[in-house]
């Protein structure tokens, strides 16, 4: 970008002031672009979330606005802008107004140093991952401000819970990131991606068994930091009306909402670049990739696919798992995740000392861990397939009409779900 600015200023023969202005304009343009991309992703994730929720609960999900309801997020956004912006009389006005911006700032600024592609990064900071961990902590400030300024007991409880949770879960997340930083020898996001390869056994997640554990540690901690189910205690609607955003209406609530959903993409993107090889194309070196536009696009597509697969997993977790209790949440963090993260750090350090990079032992370790991961994945897929075979894919909703003699039959309802599916095929003898 700097070279482009220099080229343009030379071409238009701008003075030093004009050059500064041009640079500022270019920075603003890039910032606006990053913001728009992050907003769009956040909006699309709300749609993905509602569609996946529908599928999980044997429903359909939004399907009236656009194809498959795809434009639902635009309708919701337009409505939220048009809603009245209520500021309670007893609330602390300036702080109440400011809180959503702090939340959005924390998440959207982080998008600046996410490597979407080899050249698609707004700012490749040499302390990239540290910056990401630090700037996302700004969300805590916003959440606490919202909870305090609302002057509402539910908001305050939600804000305090959220702050405790985010601060606690930053420890295992940071330690898991440290495992990767040890391997890459750099804090820059691009250097970390470059230290990996395109093939799965060159990814950091499969470098050794400790890294595999560190990946799951990071993912769990990041989901908890994003206040997502099963860790969505700050917004538990059965206890705290809506947590820290109880008093927020209209687009101020939309700010929190978009921040939360952009955070899902952010955590998936960080996990992809730290552990899953980022934009690396299998069989192509970074130098080769830099030379070809098509390989660049392919790298971006690969990053996109991996990140969205992780987004899907986060959404899937939300609609599958029940919410934890507060003490369980803290116990999980301090009694299990943090000791495990320290063990991973120690193990990786020892392996780094013992195993020469590029040796046969190193390759064997990588291939073995990849096999372990593949085995785990296959086992999981097999169990899922088994349950679908046994219980059916969707619950039959016509259960009341399918009695033995065409009448309501309570015995019919108490059967296991697989029976409905067989009955639908007309194979059930009764």
């Amino acid at each position, binding site marked *: 970008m700097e070279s482009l600015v220099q080229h343009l200023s030379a071409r238009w023969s701008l003075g030093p002031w004009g050059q500064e202005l041009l640079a500022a304009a270019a920075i603003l343009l890039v910032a606006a672009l990053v913001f728009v991309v992050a907003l769009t992703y956040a909006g699309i994730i709300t749609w993905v979330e509602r569609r996946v929720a529908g599928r999980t609960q044997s429903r359909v999900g939004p399907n009236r606005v656009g194809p498959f309801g795809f434009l639902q997020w635009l*309708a919701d956004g337009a409505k939220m802008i048009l809603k009245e912006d209520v500021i309670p009389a007893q609330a602390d006005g300036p702080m109440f107004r400011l809180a959503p911006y702090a939340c959005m700032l924390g998440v959207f600024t982080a998008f600046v140093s996410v490597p979407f592609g080899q050249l698609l990064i707004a700012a490749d900071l040499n302390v990239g991952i540290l910056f990401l961990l630090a700037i996302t902590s700004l969300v805590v400030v916003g959440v606490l401000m919202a909870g305090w300024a609302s002057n509402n007991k539910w908001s305050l409880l939600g804000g305090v819970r959220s702050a405790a949770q985010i601060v606690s879960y930053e420890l295992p997340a940071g330690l898991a990131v440290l495992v990767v930083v040890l391997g890459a020898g750099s804090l820059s996001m691009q250097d970390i991606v470059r230290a990996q390869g395109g093939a799965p056994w060159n990814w950091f997640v499969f470098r050794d068994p400790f890294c595999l554990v560190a990946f799951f540690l990071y993912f769990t901690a990041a989901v908890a930091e994003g206040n997502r189910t099963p860790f969505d205690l700050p917004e538990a609607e059965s206890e705290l009306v809506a947590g820290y955003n109880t008093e927020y209406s209209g687009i101020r609530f939309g700010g929190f909402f978009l921040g939360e959903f952009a955070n899902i993409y952010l955590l998936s993107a960080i996990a992809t670049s730290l552990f899953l090889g980022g934009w690396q194309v299998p069989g192509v070196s970074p130098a080769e990739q830099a030379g070809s536009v098509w390989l660049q696009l392919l790298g971006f597509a690969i990053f996109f696919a991996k990140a969205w697969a992780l987004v899907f997993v986060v959404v899937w977790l939300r609609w599958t798992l029940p919410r934890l209790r507060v003490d369980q949440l803290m116990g999980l963090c301090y009694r299990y995740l943090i000791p495990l993260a320290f063990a991973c750090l120690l193990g990786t350090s020892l392996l780094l000392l013992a195993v020469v990079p590029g040796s046969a032992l190193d390759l064997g370790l990588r291939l073995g861990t990849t096999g372990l991961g593949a085995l785990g994945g296959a086992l999981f897929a097999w169990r899922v397939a088994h349950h679908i075979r046994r219980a059916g894919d969707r619950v039959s909703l016509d259960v009341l009409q399918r009695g033995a003699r065409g009448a309501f039959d309570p015995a019919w309802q108490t059967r296991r779900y697989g029976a409905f599916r067989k009955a639908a095929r007309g194979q059930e003898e009764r």
Partner: protein
Amino acid sequence: MSAAGDRPIIEAGPEGGFALGPLDGLLNLARKHSLWYLLFGTACCAIELMQTGGPRADADRFGFLFRPTPRQADVLILAGTITYRMASRIRRLHEQMAEPRYVIAMGSCANTGGLFQGSYSVVKGGDLIVPVDVYIPGCPPRPEALLEGLMLLQQKVEREPYLRKIRGELPLPADPWPAGKECKE
């Protein structure tokens, strides 16, 4: 969209002519597909309200999402019998909702007091405390009926001259339980 087509593009406002017809239509199209309802029920109709969000009726198809807090809700569904004790709470919930807000009276009790009309403690209709947009008959209405009510509300929202509406002009019914007269709890 058809609602926007019915109106002239240039309309005279209090300060002169301005063109808002098509924009109104576009905004209303967004608004009508994003009516979030409040998770609130006073009696047995609330069971049917929960069912409306379930797999069989699936209100989410139309963009009707539940919100647990009145600040973020657009629609207040009066689901069930309203007692005098509850009336002031419902009034307060309605006041806590952000404009533009709508109310659906679901079932006989919320319409007229229904089965308990003769009771000393039951409000004879939700429209005595909050302005109601759609009435749904039934005791209780089935989820399909509630869905139809919500779709009728969509039609109403679609036809609203949103940008030209003067907010707060809708008079609220007289407070049946004025402050200072509240009974001790």
